[in-house]
């Protein structure tokens, strides 16, 4: 037997270890450390205002919904919201409007039991006009980004009744990626279309009714790296990974 390392903690200041100790943030702190534009934890106990952890873009919620649903994070008691017709409005555009402007949207989503009642779940959309943008969950359960008269990207993986971590990123070169559960699912170039500068909506964006659970929604005006996505997923699941650069 070859002993690779034996630590009995007798040396002060963890002197037996070459590396310093590493702080492990909770999921919400890790998200905030990535400087989101807005971050809604969906843990409201009452009311119709969904707080933004950055303090900038609280959402006004109306329509059918249920607060206090079991959340997505393994080691966190923060709750989630069941959207069953409700919509939450930011009263501001949050997705960047410029061509090839990078952004990311990270969220946890799951469907209720039974057939998925698909539709758009967030976006900046009012009509079928150029640049109006939607993130959908079609009836087949895949994730989809559409920018009217522009990119249309489906994930290969499907949403089901378990919490899934979905991250959409767009690079400054117009590369669009769907990540599911911390892993890259699909990527497609040429997705740098301009997004219409209209209010950001969360929930039932169009007249199509949708029925799903949302948790921990964050919008970034930069592209999250694959390492950052994996780091966040691990923290959410209670699986320690090494963040980018460590």
């Amino acid at each position, binding site marked *: *037997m*070859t*002993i*690779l*390392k*034996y*630590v*009995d*903690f*007798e040396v*002060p*200041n*963890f002197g037996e*270890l*070459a*590396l310093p*100790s*590493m*702080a*492990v*943030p*909770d999921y919400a702190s890790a998200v905030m450390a990535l400087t989101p534009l807005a971050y809604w934890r969906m843990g409201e106990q009452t009311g119709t205002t969904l707080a933004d952890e950055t303090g900038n873009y609280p959402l006004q919620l109306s329509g059918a919904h249920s607060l206090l649903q079991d959340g997505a994070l*393994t*080691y*966190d*008691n923060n709750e989630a919201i069941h959207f069953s017709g409700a919509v939450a409005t930011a009263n501001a555009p949050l997705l960047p409007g410029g061509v090839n402007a990078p952004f990311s949207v990270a969220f946890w989503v799951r469907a209720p039991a039974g057939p998925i009642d698909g539709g758009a779940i967030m976006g900046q959309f009012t009509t079928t006009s150029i640049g109006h943008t939607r993130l959908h969950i079609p009836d087949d359960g895949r994730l989809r980004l559409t920018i009217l008269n522009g990119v249309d990207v489906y994930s290969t993986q499907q949403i089901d009744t378990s919490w899934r971590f979905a991250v959409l990123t767009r690079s400054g070169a117009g590369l669009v990626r769907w990540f599911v559960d911390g892993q890259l699912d699909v990527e497609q170039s040429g997705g740098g279309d301009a997004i219409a500068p209209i209010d950001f909506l969360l929930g039932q964006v169009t007249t199509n009714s949708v029925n799903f659970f949302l948790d921990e929604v964050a919008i970034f005006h930069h592209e999250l790296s694959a*390492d950052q996505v*994996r780091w966040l997923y*691990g*923290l959410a699941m*209670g*699986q*320690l*990974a*090494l*963040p*980018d650069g*460590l």
Partner: protein
Amino acid sequence: MSALSQISTGSLPELPGSTVLRMDMTGDHEVLRVDLGTPRETLFCRFMVNPTQVAGGEVVLAGGIDAQGRSVWQVTLDLTNELVTFHVGGVQMTSALPTSLAWHSVEVGLDTSTGLVSLRVNGVPRGTATAVFNATQHAWLGVGFISIGPTGTIDVDHWVLADSPIGVPRSTPADEHAGDPRRWLVVYNRSDAESCVWADTYRDRRGVPYANLCGLVLPTTETTSAGEYESMRQQIGDYLDDNGLRDQIVGVLLGYRVPGYADVAGTGSLTPIASYLHTDDAHGLPVVNPLYQSEITQRPIASEFVSVRLTGRIDAPTLAEAIALIDRADDLIANPLAHDQGADLLIDINPDSASISPGYTLPVQDWATGQGVAQLRLPTIVYDEQAPTTASNEAVIWGWRDAAPPAGFFETQGGRRAICLQFDPLPDPAVTVRDAAATDWLSAAMQAGYAYAAAPSRAYSLSSLPLPHLFFEGLRRGWTVAEAWLVAQPFLRDGLQLIGDPLMPIPFPQAGYDVFGPSPRLDLIDFDKPLAVLHAGVKQFAIDAEDLPAQGQAVRYLVRAIDAQGRSDHASATAYLAVDSGQVIRPALPAWPTDAEWLVLERAGQLVLSAYWPASLDALGIDMVQLVVQSGSDDPVTHSAVTPVTGQRRVVFTIDRPAEPTRYRFISVQGVTSFDSPWSAEVLPAGIPSQSLTLLEASS
């Protein structure tokens, strides 16, 4: 607040170092990392964890990360349900982690090439599986994630990463003998929560290392089938091998709620598992005991336990009664048996030599009726014609009875009760120690308060009977009960069993008197062969006729007092006895000379012959002192005589040096009786150098 700190509050007591890694569940999440340099296809990670200071919730406290920084595996503790879980590649392996034990060894193994993963807790495999996962490059330990709920701290120590199985952290024995608890494997039953409690109690009381606690999932019944016994035997062997303890362990103790009997043949004839486990043999046959000693010589050392091991069993109807057996063994150490505590030996040497092999009974009778049993320095009652019917407060019973103890045999409960051994197997064999209503000798003795009890569980070969002189001599020398029990058995695995704490000795009293003699001179006394060994309560002692001097002779006896520590040098007394007309009298001999061939003084060319008495001659009743000379081969003749005056204690004769080799002696006359001093060394004539003379001038 930092989650991790180093605390010197005490690690595993048996290992060097006292500092542990303390994880505070109320602090920030923080981990320690080891970069293994390259991805390790095969990795084993072991740490010791003490979760007894934390309550509720779940914590992820160890894991591995691949070269790309992705989580590969993790270990979580469920503190509410006392579980540990190994997560890897979609596989989960969970094991109980009862907090009745403070420290636990948790070891995970991963082989990327085969996909084989394993979880080992406290040295015992708890699961293996195959999974798909990446090789580990970084290992971490600390507060990775915690659920809402845990409060308190978790201590971790002895974190090891290796390329092959690690095992429990072993503690090296300091002693070659079985009295070292590091040489014992203590088996407990993970299927019974109280068995874990007992194991920790025993560990704490005896200093058994955690590595030597072998928790197995065993039947909760007292009797097992052949298959269950075989599984148990193999698990014990695997534990020794897997944890590198095979060469270290010399004894196996079966703990509370561990099965105690095996019905190997399925006939209802039960053999104690502790009896079987004396060897590793799979078969159930008796074997010759290689460590049997026909005469006790040296204490067995670890290297001699090659094909045989010590065994023991502690079990009882309840946990409290099982712990009481530990208490009783402790009490025998704290308050050793003594002659004045009503602590007697009851030796029943029935049956006589006609009914059992003389090879057994004759040594037993010799021991019981000779000086052997006296070495134990307790008042002794020997039954050799009929069996005793009661035992009021006997500390030790060695017997043979053909039935269970009659009603009222143990007249009183408790008292100084050390060990009760009964060897007749029928008609009431000892097949349970868990049934409080059992009436066999084993159960009855335990209920009567004995710390140890032995009895057979079935018929056996009489050649297997333990020999008491060997057993008690081992104990007298301070060996553990298990050692004494082993070396006294000519054959092993034959149905005999001993219940009680095998790691402990039974200290017999050391204080008493040793009587030596008869001997014509003190310097001829053989101190290896005492005439009698007496306990401290003896006030008088009758010398057997064959040990008395012949008519007209005088011999010396020496009585040496032995103190409580067995030391012989603190006091002694001599007696010089003669026989006159069949009566032993104490002669009034001089205090000097006392030894044969005493040296004669020479002063100014004359011989000075002096004799001294310890008291005045008149007080001693001495009427006259004569000087007797014997020249060459002539008959002794009286040279001169003096009548002492009142208060005189010394007589001196000054005479010329002889013309031929001559020797001298004094005779003290008391009425019609006279007593001779020893003869002097022979004095040579003047002009011939004589080594028999002491020249005062030359020495002064």
